[in-house]
């Protein structure tokens, strides 16, 4: 009760401040969305019709929205400022971000240069920052005119406290860009700095120009240090530092030879760039938005989150005014830059990986390593096919009919590959049923999931007729693995190519893990029979790669490598997968439908009796 009073009071206060600036103010009610697994929702825009039945008035979130109309504008476009704010548990950082946004808003209500309307969304973040922003955007872009009559009639009472508030939802033109403003809770002890988060769902990025604007204004006008996320563990790694020093030396040497060659960069810059690049790739590959800005990208609006992190923690800060002034000027500059644009952001980079706030790797460059990784797959597949079809007709009598049958032998392998992929689909759909069962811990879930996967795989193999090692395999059966590998490689290649269109970073990371294993995989039996040094090394390599490419192992290895805080639990994997499907990330589909079946097939080849 006490909480709800505070909530409505703080909302009222914000609305009062907005009204004082002659802004149009409305409240927007929304229902928290529950994280549920929707198998068919990976590529569709979120649907607003799913409202769980048992929602009471107390659980309704309420955004406060203020709109300033540009005095001489035509109201066709709008810029959105978002400040997430939890009215149930007000912390000083959020209050400061409200202060920064209010100072900008009050300035914009008086300026004459405004050409686009300004929307200030105070997002009620008690159910998460993302869900409130996405609920507001859904209402803005795709409202439901046909209301499902929940018991909302009684809930609406609180939204119309002040008689002056217009009860309807207000809009202002096409959204040109959006800026999420946050203030970090704890000081960083170095300097006032700015964190930029840009990754949206499925590795989509906002237009690079938006990041450039913020970067330019922050660095050159406000003298803020600007940061994008890094893999901190990479910074301390010895081998990377050594590599950096080596590259620096080579660069210096090359410059001595020809002053025109300027590819050498200092070692520490190289290390930092690599750490940033790795983190940029990881977050894009994850496909989970890194902040509320992700909701805007779903509607093709460029948006980033700007987190101002003060030198000292806001609670110990003496001069709040100075801080608000500095942050406000930065936001004002960004808003003004976007306001002055006649056209929306276009013809710049949407496909890039950041190596520092001001540097990036464009699509033309980062395509090359992926292409180099992917290119051997079809070549090796073709050569394996040739090899298997060339060696089979060694049988003494080869009639015409037999030959044509032999050439269709790959159909058998294709069937196998297809069935294994179907198994992958079944495995990735299983969590849908698992979440329906209440009261299961992550570990239990994972156990059930894993055991089902293994069991079904065993059953499938027994049905397909797994060649038993007891019987002496014929020559044709011996060569069967080559056929199977050729089809597997093709399937992997197709899967990776498709994924690179949807989410490039996932495809690239996935290719790094699966391609070496796919290329190297050959029956262990062959290596053991040969018993040479080389083949034994090959077998060990194969086993190691097979271990690394197994999704849970890969996850745990990466986690232990990059996450310095200890405590690794197998249930983390379940939580990670759960977060992937909760955010409708295509990475989940990739792991289930491409990566896992290909890995299983390679393991099958590894243990093939030859």
């Amino acid at each position, binding site marked *: 009760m006490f909480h709800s009073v505070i909530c409505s009071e703080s909302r009222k206060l914000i609305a009062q401040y907005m009204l004082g600036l002659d802004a149009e103010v409305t409240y927007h009610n929304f229902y928290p969305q529950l994280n549920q697994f929707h198998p068919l929702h990976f590529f569709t825009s979120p649907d607003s019709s799913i409202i769980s039945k048992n929602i009471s008035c107390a659980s309704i979130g309420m955004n406060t929205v203020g709109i300033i109309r540009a005095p*001489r504008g035509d*109201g066709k476009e709008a810029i959105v400022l978002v400040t997430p704010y939890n009215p149930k548990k007000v912390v000083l950082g959020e209050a400061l971000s409200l202060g920064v946004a209010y100072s900008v808003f009050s300035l914009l209500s008086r300026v*004459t240069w405004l050409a686009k309307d300004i929307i200030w969304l105070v997002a009620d973040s008690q159910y998460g920052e993302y869900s409130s922003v996405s609920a507001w955007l859904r209402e803005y*872009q*795709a409202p439901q*005119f046909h209301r499902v009559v929940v018991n909302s009639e009684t809930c609406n009472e609180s939204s119309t406290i002040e008689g002056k508030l217009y009860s*309807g939802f207000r809009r202002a033109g096409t959204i040109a860009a959006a800026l999420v403003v946050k203030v970090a809770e704890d000081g960083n002890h170095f300097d006032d700095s700015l964190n930029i988060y840009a990754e949206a769902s499925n590795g989509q990025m906002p237009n690079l120009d938006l990041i450039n604007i913020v970067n330019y204004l922050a660095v050159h006008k406000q003298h803020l240090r600007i940061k994008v996320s890094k893999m901190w563990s990479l910074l301390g790694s010895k081998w990377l530092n050594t590599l950096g020093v080596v590259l620096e030396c080579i660069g210096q040497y090359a410059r001595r030879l020809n002053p025109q060659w300027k590819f050498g960069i200092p070692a520490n810059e190289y290390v930092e760039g690599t750490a940033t690049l790795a983190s940029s790739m990881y977050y894009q590959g994850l496909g989970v938005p890194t902040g509320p800005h992700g909701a805007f990208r779903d509607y093709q609006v460029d948006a980033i989150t700007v987190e101002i992190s003060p030198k000292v923690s806001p609670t110990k800060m003496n001069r709040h005014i100075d801080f608000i002034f500095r942050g406000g000027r930065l936001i004002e500059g960004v808003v003004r830059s976007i306001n002055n644009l006649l056209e929306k952001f276009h*013809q710049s980079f949407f496909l890039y990986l950041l190596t520092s706030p001001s540097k990036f790797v464009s699509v033309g460059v980062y395509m090359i390593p992926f292409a180099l990784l992917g290119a051997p797959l079809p070549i090796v597949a073709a050569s394996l096919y040739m090899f298997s079809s060339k060696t089979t007709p060694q049988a003494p009598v080869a009639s015409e009919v037999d030959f044509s049958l032999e050439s269709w032998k790959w159909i058998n392998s294709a069937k196998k590959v297809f069935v294994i992929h179907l198994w992958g689909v079944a495995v990735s759909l299983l969590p849908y049923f698992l979440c329906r069962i209440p009261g299961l811990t992550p570990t239990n879930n994972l156990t059930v999931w894993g055991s089902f996967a293994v069991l079904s795989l065993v059953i499938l193999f027994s049905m397909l007729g797994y060649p038993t090692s007891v019987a002496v395999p014929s020559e044709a059966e011996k060569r069967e693995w080559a056929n199977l590998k050729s089809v597997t490689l093709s399937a992997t290649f197709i899967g990776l190519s498709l994924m690179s269109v949807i989410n490039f970073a996932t495809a690239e990371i996935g290719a790094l893990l699966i391609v070496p294993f796919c290329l190297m995989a050959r029956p262990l039996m062959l290596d053991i029979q040969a018993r040479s040094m080389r083949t034994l090394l090959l077998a060990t390599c194969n086993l190691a790669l097979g271990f690394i490419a197994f999704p849970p192992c890969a996850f745990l290895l990466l986690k232990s490598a990059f996450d310095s805080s200890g405590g690794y639990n197998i249930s983390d994997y379940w939580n990670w997968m759960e977060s992937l499907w909760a955010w409708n990330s295509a990475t989940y589909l990739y792991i289930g439908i491409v990566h896992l079946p290909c890995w299983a097939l390679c393991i099958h080849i590894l243990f093939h009796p030859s």
Partner: protein
Amino acid sequence: MALLSRKGTLFMLFLFSIFLLSASASNGSGEEEEEEFWEELLLKPLPDRKVLSHFHFQNEAPLSDSFARHHHLFPKSIAQLVKKFHIKAMELSFTQGRWNYERWGGFDPISSHNAKPPGVELWAVFDVPPHQVDASWKDLTHALSGLFCASINFLESSTTYSAPKWTFQSALGSLRYGTLPREAVCTENLTPWLKLLPCRDKAGLSALMDRPSIYKSFYHSQRLHLTQAKTGADPKNSRVVLEQTLTVVLQPNILTGGTNYVSEAKMQPSWSLSSIFGRKINVERGLVTQLENLQSSTATFAANGTNLDDFGRNVGFELSVNPDRVLKEVEKSSSILYEYPIKVHKDSEQFDLGITWKHPVIWSTPHAPLYASRFLMGSGNERGAIAICMKSTESTQGLVAANYVDQRCNFQVNVLQIVPWYIKVYYHTLQLFVDEKPQVLTDFVERMRVSPSEDKVSPGLMELVLKLPCEVKSAVLNIEFDKGFLHIDEYPPDANQGFDIPSAIISFPDFNAGLQFSDNSISKTPMLSKLQERSPVISYTEVLLVPLTTPDFSMPYNVITITCTVFALYFGSLLNALRRRVGEEERCLNDKGNTQLFQFLHPKTQVT
């Protein structure tokens, strides 16, 4: 007195003042030949501390037969225009900014006639046979474009104009309607508009039009309205009436220093003519014969029971000049009009009307029956939907309360929506939601007229006549569209900004925007009669911006560059191979060597 603005006291008030000035010239050849000119100014404080000023100039002249005829007051260019293109009626408006229907009202004649969509809007009715209408329209757009320094000539293309039937004065005949939402309006459009006045802005009310203060306004709309009024049965006796209006919403300077957010009881700013425009009206001018000033104000007192008779004590403001006449509006909002004819003030050199507020007053202006807003739905480059959302206001609620208690009451709403051809609207997807419930269209749509768009030829047009029940809370029209692809040369400049969908027009024929004043007996000035004229309530919705797919415009450049390089290489080498003769070249070289040797040996032979 601050108590007045506290809750519980709904204090409605609106107030305007008019200047009037008229001149008539006669060339002595009969009564019909007389030309007349009036100028008036109406000032009205708005609830959100702004001031509406509405200049109204009316020029009337008989339509003559010859093109060469000179008028005394009437602009010749307009007379020629009317003559040449057989214009029955025409309206052209240039607007910057948006009319705020919520704060500035939508139920009075000012907003109904002068609230226009941003950019240029033009409609014209022609008195020509149907097959010539389009040709006349095209010529007219070119003529107007030259007259007003605006790109009205873009309305010439058949993709930009259409022929609505029910929204405008359909009885007049063949009407064409077109808008240019992206047209920027500035002082280069005002100057030619002022040129049409007898004294430009050198004398009279137009001298008040200080450019910086006018263009600093929150809303700026200049309008030109032409009608042919027939005085008798004889068609030759018709007169041309040219109305020129300029409507600006200005913010008077606030003198108070600190802005306090909690100042609930905000004082209305006091202003005077000189503080708004920075100028005063000079009375001593040649043409000025009369100058009147009207001012009106209304108050309905809900709680404290003050009646209208002693409003003078209670309205809470003071006028610097005493009005000549006070008119009360009786029907709708009971506003009061103060009239100031300028002839009374002839003795004083300059006339400066001012208003001083004594205590905070809060009121609201009457709204249109339904508050309409329009928005786009969906995202991406493929498809979307247009939704027109109409919400009931106090006007419809009053309608329910007032009458039709026993029987079912309906009111009519006309919707006109024009969409450019590259927005491919699927008319079968039209949905209607009344009070958030999906409804069968035929239950509410009385008539409907659709002319689908034709690619690169004509825009799509949809006219709806809706009958909505009086107790309606909200009505939403929703229609889906596909975004089309344009050819590269069809993209306008700044194509990446997006494409405009012109405003929809919502009109309410059952509601009368005109005001009714208490005494109709006294002589009417043109503006007063315009205010009293029975006309439907009209409101415009927002202009929408649709982002369409745009090609990489530098692509043709790249292609041209590469092609040219290839051609240059090919032809260059070919020509070189064809023209070169090895033997001749060698001979030339030898000859050259010989002459050089010769010159070297005999330098004296060189002629300067």
